[in-house]
């Protein structure tokens, strides 16, 4: 029995080690080094100390794992990081948009003593102390997509959510001909981007008294939620002219619901983000428009700014990513992204 116990513990250790080392990003880049480090830990330390200037390590922390948008921010960041020989660690809260978990991730990166952090704050106010802790530890922070209310940051690379959403809402009203029955799908209650985009839609529609807002409900920025919320709304309202969703995932969920109910032809769907699936939906006339906010560039610019900052170069405090309204007219420009969705 004692042997069994001992064996199971050994098995656990081996299983754990194999799993962990198989997953370590360093293993891909330098398998030989990894093997050495595994056998003798001090060797790793020596290697780290010997070449501190060359290989920078950045941490990227986004808001969630289940939204392809953040994967695109990661993609863009990774591209710039790899081109500059920077190792990029990607972390995100397992509970989507969870501030407590995101704070933990930033603190862990500080403890790991990374050279820089690219952060997409879940909440602009609540993340401030974590940024201040990074400041205190001397680790530069660059923000992408969502701003923070305080702390010192190298730069903030994003579209202006409020303005971009206004642009989209104006286009929606124009397509509707200035009147109609509209449903708004809001983002996660309390999330900064959700608040900004909702304000953008509300402020636009307020100027058009003939546009009637039937309902404005949250679908948590998620596709599955967009589907169920829309299914319920379809029961309640026999006539819906347009759905304005504050992100593409919810818009795509609404498209599914409308399609299943056979009402997609009567209702125009507008999204925001410009993720690959949504671009494809625009090309297939399932969605009318979305707002491409170039997530790859948002991430990539933030990484580049950190690299420049560490190299002692001047970095602008705000990097404006241009938002592009995507409609049937210019969808051809996004052919490569649509191909990626297939």
């Amino acid at each position, binding site marked *: 029995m004692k042997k069994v116990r001992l064996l199971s513990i050994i098995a*656990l*250790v081996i299983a754990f080690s194999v799993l962990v080392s198989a997953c*370590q990003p360093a293993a891909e880049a330098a398998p030989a080094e990894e093997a050495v480090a595994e056998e003798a830990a001090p060797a790793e330390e020596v290697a780290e100390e010997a070449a501190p200037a060359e290989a920078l390590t950045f941490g990227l922390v986004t808001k969630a794992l289940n939204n392809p948008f953040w994967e695109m921010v990661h993609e863009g960041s990774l591209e710039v990081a790899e081109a500059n020989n920077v190792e990029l660690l990607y972390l995100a809260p*397992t*509970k989507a948009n969870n501030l*407590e978990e995101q704070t933990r991730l930033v603190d*862990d990166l500080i403890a790991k003593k990374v050279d820089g952090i690219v952060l997409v704050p879940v909440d602009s106010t609540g993340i401030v102390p974590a940024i201040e802790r990074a400041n205190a530890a001397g680790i530069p922070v660059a923000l992408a997509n969502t701003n923070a209310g305080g702390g010192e940051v190298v730069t903030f690379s994003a579209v202006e959510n409020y303005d971009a959403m206004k642009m989209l809402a104006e286009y929606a009203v124009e397509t509707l001909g200035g009147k109609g029955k509209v449903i708004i799908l809001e983002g996660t209650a*309390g999330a900064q981007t959700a608040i900004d985009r909702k304000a953008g839609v509300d402020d636009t529609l307020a100027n058009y008294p003939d546009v009637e807002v039937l309902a404005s409900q949250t679908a948590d920025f998620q596709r599955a939620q967009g589907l169920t919320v829309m299914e319920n709304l379809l029961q309640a309202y026999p006539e819906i002219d347009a759905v304005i969703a504050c992100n593409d995932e919810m818009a795509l969920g609404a498209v599914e619901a409308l399609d299943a109910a056979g009402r997609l032809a009567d209702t125009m769907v507008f999204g925001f983000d410009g993720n690959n699936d949504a671009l494809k939906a625009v090309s297939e006339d399932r969605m009318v428009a979305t707002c491409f906010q170039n997530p790859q560039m948002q991430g990539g610019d933030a990484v580049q700014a950190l690299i420049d900052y560490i190299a002692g170069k001047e970095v602008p405090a705000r990097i404006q990513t241009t938002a592009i309204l995507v409609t049937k007219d210019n969808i051809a420009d996004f052919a490569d992204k649509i191909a990626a969705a297939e």
Partner: protein
Amino acid sequence: MKEFNGKQIRQFVLEKVPTVTWILIVMMVYFSVSNSNFLTLDNAANLCRQGAILLILCLGVIVVKITGGIELSNGAVMSLCGMVMAWVMVNLNLPPFLAIIVSMIVGILFGTLNGVFVTFMGIPSFVATLGTQGIAVGLALGMNNGNVIGGLPEGFSAIGNGTLLNIPIPLWAIILVFVVTSVLLNKTPFGVYVYALGGNEEALKLSGKPAWLYKVLAYSYSGLTAGIAACILTSRNMAAQPTVGLGMEFEAFAGAVLGGSYIAGKGTALGGALGGIFILILRNGLNILGIPTYLQLAIFGTVLITAIVLSTLVERRVQKMRDEEREE
């Protein structure tokens, strides 16, 4: 005095030391060897600060767990407590220490509500606490139209970020809650009844003792821990977000189960704390090694199941030893 032989010592160790301890030691050695940033004072302080929230929740959950109940509302209640305390500080200009008391009262109220549902209405704890979770999230979101409450008084930051005698204040909070939970479970009638509730509730009822009172109190205590955890959480972010605690209930519950209380009537404060530490260190270590999050989830699940299987094996072994002893 009776002499102890090797077998007795082994039985004693297996019985008294939660199995998760060994796995924890193995894990910590592995992380320390793999990355030089894991075993540092900085990271220890980091773990104390970020860990206090989960650990304190675990210590509340384990009490409910010992009575045979399940607690799913504490994450949401913690969010609500945070919102209420931030609200009273911002809108009523209440000093932080009063806001802390308010937070604890809200926690106790919701815990007691759980207890009342479970005890008097016969609702299974799983359903009752899921219901209060919904109520708490709804209220938290409604308080400020889903928005965050920020702009808290400067001094409030000390709770989550300050130190007392060079020790992070969250660590003091862990120690305090740990000692209180230990004393409650081991030295008071409350503890006796909590274990009895999990062991054989019917027998306790037939004995004519007020079983209901202690059952309600067990849930109230878990609510109180949610209120305390909310103080640290809100202070760490210097803002209260309405959905911040969602999902924490599962981590806390997993911690409580890992700590040895997967059977009703079993479990200790030490076990609950170690279970929480286990989850915390696993996540922290994987982050420090730089493992991508999606792989972390798979590793997390694997290790969790392995740990519980191992605990079960040890539990069976101890049971067998006891049976053998009785036969002798």
